[in-house]
């Protein structure tokens, strides 16, 4: 348990991805089965402790300490699990080497009934040290909050075993805690576990960004050209009467899109873009689609308001036949047959764009017919379907980003390589009448500039600080004095979380406009014009 609680604490406080990977790698190397597998399940959200309800925690601590002392403690610490873990009266057992393992803990709590859960949990807390108690209480309350995605955990597994992450994604859904056969394979002691799972996920093929230079030497006739839709990449897999919808990382998102899953009357695996709207005429914006994302379940009302469909562009399996080594032209033909048999409100084909020259296409990608199109995709007609991001066969050629001139308002200190620098910037645009303009924040960016530019902005921040809030500084931002940042971004959504009412997608600093007086920066109305209607 001690290794797991130490891992949680370090993960919580390590902001950098590489740092998290190093910690996980070390943990997987040093921790025996089944603990490392149980930890993996806990970190990827695969643990369920149904008998233990968070409400019993407060009752347990109040049996053990004065209510007023507990109240003072909770006020100071601010987090229930942490307060209880720290204030739990010592029994002396926690210092012994014989403290329960993570596997023991999860085993005991997993089988606890509601009636005996308080006694079991109380006994466990008696036998653990403070970090161990914290870890257990966070497992019980179901929120580890260590800033770790399932994808990152899989990447760490791949690094640990010296395999490609797509190999892990491919078999992931057939595995269950404590993942003994997975670790046996990664330790080099057994073969790769076979994927016995119905409707499995197949690692997806990704495109590289293109520029005109990349394309000058190749012939447009060798390529299939499609619009690049601003939805989310999905894979629909169906076999043995079971259908699953996956994100491109292999997360199962079937429950959020039941109407699509139910309409999948085929056997095989297809690749496409998940969108909302009523095809073929109406395609909703990404912000409409967002209403449907990250949900465990979905109401009928929401399904009616934002109906989902898949715009299909590839076929990996047709029935049991693996088409991935067949050329795209052949896969596309078979895809047309499959899609033609299904409900056109749920499945349609990604249309081909006819193109005579790359110059003509350059014009199209920059001025697409619909706002939900964010550029074009180019795929070699003879390319097989290769997992990962192979160089050459597929390109994405995106619309040039939108840019606005905004004014730097707040700067926050960075971490790691950027310790000691103000490197995260919040910027705003003007609103209000011309006589009395005010800045309203529209976004935050922390990359897009060189190290030299970072030093220059940092100097500006230090010399123009007007207020400090912990690690954040407010800087002078007035019509006649301030720093104008040219910000590039992919689009704008409405947002109720920001005062400006808009949120930028993928903002980054594209240029520093030392030459421009803040008064000449853009106004909110200009930004709002980019909102989807």
């Amino acid at each position: 348990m001690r290794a797991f609680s130490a891992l949680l604490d370090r993960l919580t406080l390590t902001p950098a991805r590489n740092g998290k990977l190093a910690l996980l790698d070390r943990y997987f190397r040093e921790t025996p089965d089944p603990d490392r597998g149980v930890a993996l399940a806990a970190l990827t959200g695969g643990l369920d402790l149904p008998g233990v309800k968070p409400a019993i925690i407060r009752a347990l601590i109040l049996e053990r300490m004065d209510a007023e002392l507990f109240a003072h403690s909770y006020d100071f610490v601010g987090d229930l699990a942490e307060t209880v873990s720290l204030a739990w009266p010592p029994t002396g057992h926690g210092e012994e080497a014989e403290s329960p393992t993570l596997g023991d803990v999860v085993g005991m709590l997993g089988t606890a009934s509601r009636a005996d859960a308080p006694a079991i949990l109380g006994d466990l807390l008696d036998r653990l040290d403070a970090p161990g108690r914290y870890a257990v209480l966070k497992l019980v309350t179901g929120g580890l909050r260590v800033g770790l995605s399932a994808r990152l955990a899989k990447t760490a597994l791949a690094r640990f075993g010296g395999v490609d992450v797509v190999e892990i994604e491919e078999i992931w859904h057939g595995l269950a805690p404590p993942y003994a056969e997975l670790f046996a394979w990664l330790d080099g002691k057994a073969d790769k576990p076979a994927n016995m799972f119905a409707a499995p996920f197949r690692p997806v093929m990704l495109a590289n960004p293109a520029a005109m230079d990349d394309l000058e030497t190749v012939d447009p006739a060798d390529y299939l050209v499609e619009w690049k839709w601003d939805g989310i990449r999905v894979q629909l897999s169906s076999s043995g009467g079971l259908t699953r919808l996956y994100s491109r990382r292999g997360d199962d998102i079937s429950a959020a899109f039941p109407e699509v899953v139910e309409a999948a009357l085929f056997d095989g695996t297809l690749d496409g873009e998940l969108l909302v709207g009523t095809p073929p005429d109406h395609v909703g914006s990404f912000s409409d689609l967002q209403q449907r994302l990250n949900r465990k379940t979905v109401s009928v009302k929401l399904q009616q308001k934002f109906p989902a469909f898949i715009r299909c562009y590839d076929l990996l399996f047709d029935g049991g036949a693996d088409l991935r080594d067949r050329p795209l032209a052949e896969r596309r033909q078979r895809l047309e047959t499959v899609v033609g048999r299904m409900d056109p409100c749920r499945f349609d084909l990604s249309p081909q764009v006819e193109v005579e020259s790359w110059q003509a296409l350059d014009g199209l990608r920059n001025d697409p017919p619909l706002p939900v199109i964010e550029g074009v995709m180019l795929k070699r007609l003879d390319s097989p379907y290769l997992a990962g991001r192979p160089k050459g066969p597929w390109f994405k050629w995106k619309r040039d980003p939108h840019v606005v001139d905004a004014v730097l308002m707040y700067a926050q200190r960075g971490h790691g390589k950027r310790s000691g620098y103000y490197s995260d910037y919040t910027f705003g645009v003007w609103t209000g009448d011309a006589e009395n303009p005010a800045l309203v924040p529209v976004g935050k960016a922390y990359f897009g500039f060189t190290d030299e530019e970072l030093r220059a902005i940092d100097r500006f921040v230090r010399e123009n600080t007007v207020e400090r809030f912990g690690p954040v500084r407010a800087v002078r931002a007035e019509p006649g004095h301030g720093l104008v940042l040219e910000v590039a971004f992919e689009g704008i959504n409405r947002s109720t979380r920001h005062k400006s009412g808009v949120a930028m997608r993928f903002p980054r600093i594209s240029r520093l406009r030392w030459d421009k007086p803040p008064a000449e920066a853009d106004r909110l109305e200009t930004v709002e014009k980019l909102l989807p209607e």
Partner: protein
Amino acid sequence: MRASDLLHPRPEGLYCPPGDFHIDPVRPVARALVTHGHADHARPGHGAVLATAETLDIMAIRFGGDHAASTQVAEPARPVVIDGVEVTFFPAGHVLGSAQILVEHKGMRIVASGDYKRRADPTCAPFEVVPCDVFITEATFGLPVFTHPDDRGEIGKLLRSLTTFGERTHLVGAYSLGKAQRLIRLIREAGHAEPIYIHGAFARLCDYYESRGAALGPLLPATTDDARADFAGRLVLGPPSAFSGPWSRRFSDPLVCYASGWMRIRQRARQQGVELPMIVSDHADWPELTRTIRDTGAGEVWVTHGREEALVRWCGLNGIAATPLNIVGYEEENE
């Protein structure tokens, strides 16, 4: 006599009317008794100062030899009489030279403990229990959530991280008097013999600790003109205030560590951008505070700087009269 006739708070600090002196005054006064050298307890500009030899040396290092008009060394456990009031200094275990002050007059014994801790510290003399009628205790960590773990485990976390993140500079924040030297000594005891790099602000106090017998091993200034790589995988100690400024930029991908009792609370660590919190404190934790109150046998406890309410409540639950004593000017963050 009533205890409050012997000692009571004034804006300048704790005052003794019959002896006409202050203990740890925060403003210049004619006669000051100083428990230890931390800047919120020891200030320059007093008329006469009575303190342990080490505390006087530390004040001279920090403020210059002329910080007071006159100074007098208080020998441990040797009473000094001031206008009929007997004062005696006993080790407090907080930092080198730190003392509790027993003030005794007409049969009334009050101990002003200053800051203290009970656990072993290789760089200073251990706390001595002084029986008394009134015990004046600090309450920096006066909540049941504060139980400081074993120092050695915390040092182990640091040395282990050095092997996991061998390419990163481990930048350890520590208060410059006491904490820094204790950490270095503990790191040496854990077997780490490599040079440790220190911020310029630590140099003179580290030299002084060495001169008083704390073997700190090879220390090098964390100042060179070139090459970030020099510090990769090294231990660098500095005051936390330096970490947000340009000083920290010379290090390769620094991993910020912070040694303080506050690191027990995760949110504190997170807010300060600390990646590796080390719970090492020079103050008593909750079990030490409550044990010490019992050990002194005091019938009355005055609780000062920190979370007074909880400790007053604990005294109440245990049948000991207790009252918060509001003395302004002590900074709890310097830990």
